[in-house]
């Protein structure tokens, strides 16, 4: 079976600063891949290249599900099934939680340019269903600005779920939360990923989470792949311990 995602020799520079320098990344269907590494290692930039947000000016080739998708816009990638969340969660903060969900459902329903309020109402059921899945049903009428940080993370995850992604790029899904909340959130996310058969690439600093969830871990440093392997291999890698695991935490 061909890999779902095959990225070759990916590079990206901002002025003189090289953020990503010739990274290869091959992801099997159904895999859960973690990207770890110190700050400035190029993890988020790599996610943004894969998600299309930083595709402009990036070098290398990306194949998704067999097609060359290098340089495609985020919306094209999203339509092909690449969904992502951001380090600082991006939601529509002046709208209600339910509206956020509805807005996320529009592209798949083909209703972005529709004027029919009725058809929007039909989507409400779906929106409610996803909100229940991500544990936000009781928040549905609240303006996003007024919900908690953790709830916003849940919402953003739900919004991406609404696009029915095949590949999910999560950028620090559990950052900035207390231990219990973090565990609950990750359990919920993992459950959804498993049930929907979604392939996962995630950036995370919490090593416990990384080792619990990931099938394969890619360690990045200074824009390059430093090491790659299953959790046991990475855990026993002396260099990784020295450079990242030792100093980072």
């Amino acid at each position: 079976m061909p890999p779902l995602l095959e990225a070759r020799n990916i590079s990206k520079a901002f002025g003189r600063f090289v953020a990503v320098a010739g990274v290869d990344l091959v992801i099997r269907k159904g895999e859960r891949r973690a990207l770890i590494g110190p700050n400035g290692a190029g993890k988020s930039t790599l996610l943004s290249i894969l998600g299309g947000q930083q595709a402009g000016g990036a070098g290398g080739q990306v194949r998704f599900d067999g097609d060359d998708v290098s340089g495609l816009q985020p919306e094209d990638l999203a339509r092909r099934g690449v969904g992502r969340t951001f380090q600082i969660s991006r939601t529509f903060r002046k709208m209600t939680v339910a509206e956020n969900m509805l807005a996320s459902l529009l592209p798949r329903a083909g209703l972005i340019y529709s004027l029919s309020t009725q058809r929007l109402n039909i989507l409400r059921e779906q929106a409610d269903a996803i909100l229940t899945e991500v544990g936000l049903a009781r928040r549905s009428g609240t303006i996003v600005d007024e919900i908690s940080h953790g709830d916003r993370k849940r919402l953003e995850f739900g919004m991406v779920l609404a696009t029915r992604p095949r590949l999910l790029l999560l950028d620090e899904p559990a950052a900035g939360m207390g231990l219990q909340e973090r565990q609950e959130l990750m359990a919920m996310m993992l459950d959804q990923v498993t049930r929907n058969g979604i392939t996962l690439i995630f950036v995370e600093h919490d090593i416990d989470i990384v080792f619990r969830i990931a099938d394969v871990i890619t360690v990045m440093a200074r824009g390059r792949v430093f090491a790659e392997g299953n959790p046991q291999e990475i855990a026993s890698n002396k260099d990784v311990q020295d450079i990242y695991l030792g100093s980072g935490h």
Partner: protein
Amino acid sequence: MTAHHRHESIIWLGAAVAAAVVLFAFGPGIALLGTEIMIMALFACSLNLIMSYGGMVSFGHAAYFGLGAYGFALAIVRFDVPPALALACGPILALLAALLFGSLCVRLSHIYFAMLTLACAEITYAILFQAYDFTGGDTGLTRFVAPRFGLTPQLYGLVVLVVLLLSLLILRRLVASPLGLAIRSVGEDPYRTAALGYNPRRVQLAAFVVAGGFAGLAGMLFSVFHGNAFPDYAGLAFTLDALVMVVIGGLHSFVGPIYGAIIYLLMKTFISRYVGEWELVVGIVLMAVVLGAPRGLAGLAARLGIPSGGRKS
């Protein structure tokens, strides 16, 4: 229909009846002023669609107002189109121009977007100003049609009121529709919408074109109102007027621009009659609004419990 909707409909109906009463009860002078306010309110509402919902601040919205006026006037003067048909030419011309300029502008954002809309408007203005043989140049087009088609001020006011209400109805439905939701989403975070599978530029363009069309409708009504067309109608002064109305009335509110149009035009009209320094007064009011009531009059009204058709739908 929910209770909230019914409540809102009653308020709209009440406001419409009140407007009609004002038009007819106080003589032609008030009817004329009222009509101007309604036309400018429509213009400001069209700007509000892209500003409050689409997240785009335009410095060139008057281009479409001006083209609405010229589309109508030129159809009659240069192409001998029957007036009834010419009425449609204004908004259509504005719509087409918005499509053309908009497709360039939505590629940019923030101040760069604003400056490109300004450039497009100034180019429009210059063409209207310089092409004497076709547009009449800076001295404009006058006396090609009887002002208000000869209707009494009251009657024409009523016509404008009906057009305004229909337009608001359409805009209200648009805002509540899937496209409206898309426009609001893109307005808040185009990045996010793109990652969800939207083409944010195309959504912005849709909003821009609709706004341009309604601005053109307002411009056409204005041209009929005065029976003339001048390049100034596409100039920066009109854009600034509309921006000020939206801000005074209240950003992020559906009806804000209407409040804004009423207050701003009453100020501009009456203060300038008694005080030479009317701009000073407008400046102070503007500053007070931004500092003291950043949600404008609609925000104040909402605090007092008057529904302002805010963003919840």
